[in-house]
């Protein structure tokens, strides 16, 4: 499956769960017009899971869905144990594994791509449930179970790497929005959570 297909399945089942996305997944959810409640960890590789953990602790009756990247997770691998220490039952942590840094631009190989087992790492760190999906149909058939069960839950999604764009940095200026959106989304999410407070 590709990243957009994976994110389409997640978005279709998310309902009012808070979405915390980063990197490629963030853009996929943008393409799907994913609305509040959501926040992006950008530009901040590695921040999504801990940002989601803070939300999960503060909002224990609301589902928090983190959609991380493999290179981002590698930057904060110890964060798996930070999550596990709190055992947030409402926390679901997807990792889109494409084996590439700057996927779709340069496709530089991530460390240990040939041998690392992300779901195994999460299980060893203390996540309660782990899954691994390689095709869209399998993800779709399990998504309600994944989102509905008691967490912390970890889901490794094997996604295909998009083809690189030669010379991408020469053509694509990073827009101001990339540096502004986390704050804008934080304020919008705060307002959304107040408006939709669980009694």
């Amino acid at each position: 499956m590709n990243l957009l297909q994976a994110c389409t399945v997640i978005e279709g089942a998310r309902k009012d769960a808070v979405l915390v996305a980063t990197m490629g997944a963030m853009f996929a959810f943008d393409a799907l017009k994913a609305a509040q409640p959501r926040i992006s960890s950008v530009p901040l590789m590695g921040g999504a899971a801990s940002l989601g953990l803070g939300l999960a602790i503060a909002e224990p009756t609301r589902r928090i869905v983190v959609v991380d990247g493999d290179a981002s997770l590698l930057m904060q691998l110890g964060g798996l144990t930070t999550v596990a220490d709190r055992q947030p039952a409402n926390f679901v942590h997807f990792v889109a594994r494409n084996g590439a840094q700057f996927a779709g631009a340069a496709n530089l190989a991530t460390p240990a791509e040939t041998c690392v087992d992300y779901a195994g790492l999460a299980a060893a760190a203390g996540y309660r449930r782990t899954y691994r999906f390689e095709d869209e149909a399998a993800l779709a058939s399990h998504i309600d179970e994944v989102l509905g069960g008691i967490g912390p839950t970890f889901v490794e999604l094997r996604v295909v790497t998009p083809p690189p764009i030669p010379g991408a940095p020469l053509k694509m200026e990073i827009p101001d929005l990339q540096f502004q959106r986390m704050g804008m989304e934080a304020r919008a999410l705060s307002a959304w959570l107040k408006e939709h407070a669980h009694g």
Partner: protein
Amino acid sequence: MGERNFNIPASGYLEALRRNGVDHFVTVPDWVQLGLHDRVERGVEGLSLVRCCNEDQAVCVSAGLRIAGKKPVTVVQNQGLYACINTIRAVGLDASLPIVFLVGQFGREFSNFGQDPSLSSRNTVKLLEPVLNALGVKFWRLEDENDLGRIDEAFAYADKESRPAVLIVGSPTGWN
């Protein structure tokens, strides 16, 4: 006059955190604040302890808590603050989230207590304030018990300006 006591009691910190509505103690433990850590580890009513593996995670967890209306304090040491500068840039400066830190001055010479930290011979001590100045992050020194009111100032500033604020714990906290 008696000798100046630089060891602010843990109870003084906890009282200041309580009156500022702090509900989460998000931390990577700090040598300088072990007295405070010891007290929090034993349980403080209304204060939930969140243990993190590194300071990037501590800042992001605090950000999530803040977004959802909670009031965390992020407790680290100077080395940890240096380690998470990019996360402070993203979360505190770009996203304007009011993260309040207690930062211990690990490695500070006892002879430097109450003095200007720039006079320390140790980079880990003397670089802290210049780094915060370079980031544009406001800070307050906590040198003795008379400075505890600065904790209130830092929280008020962070809330009003929606900016990070750093309280510098200059010497080891007392176990009392």
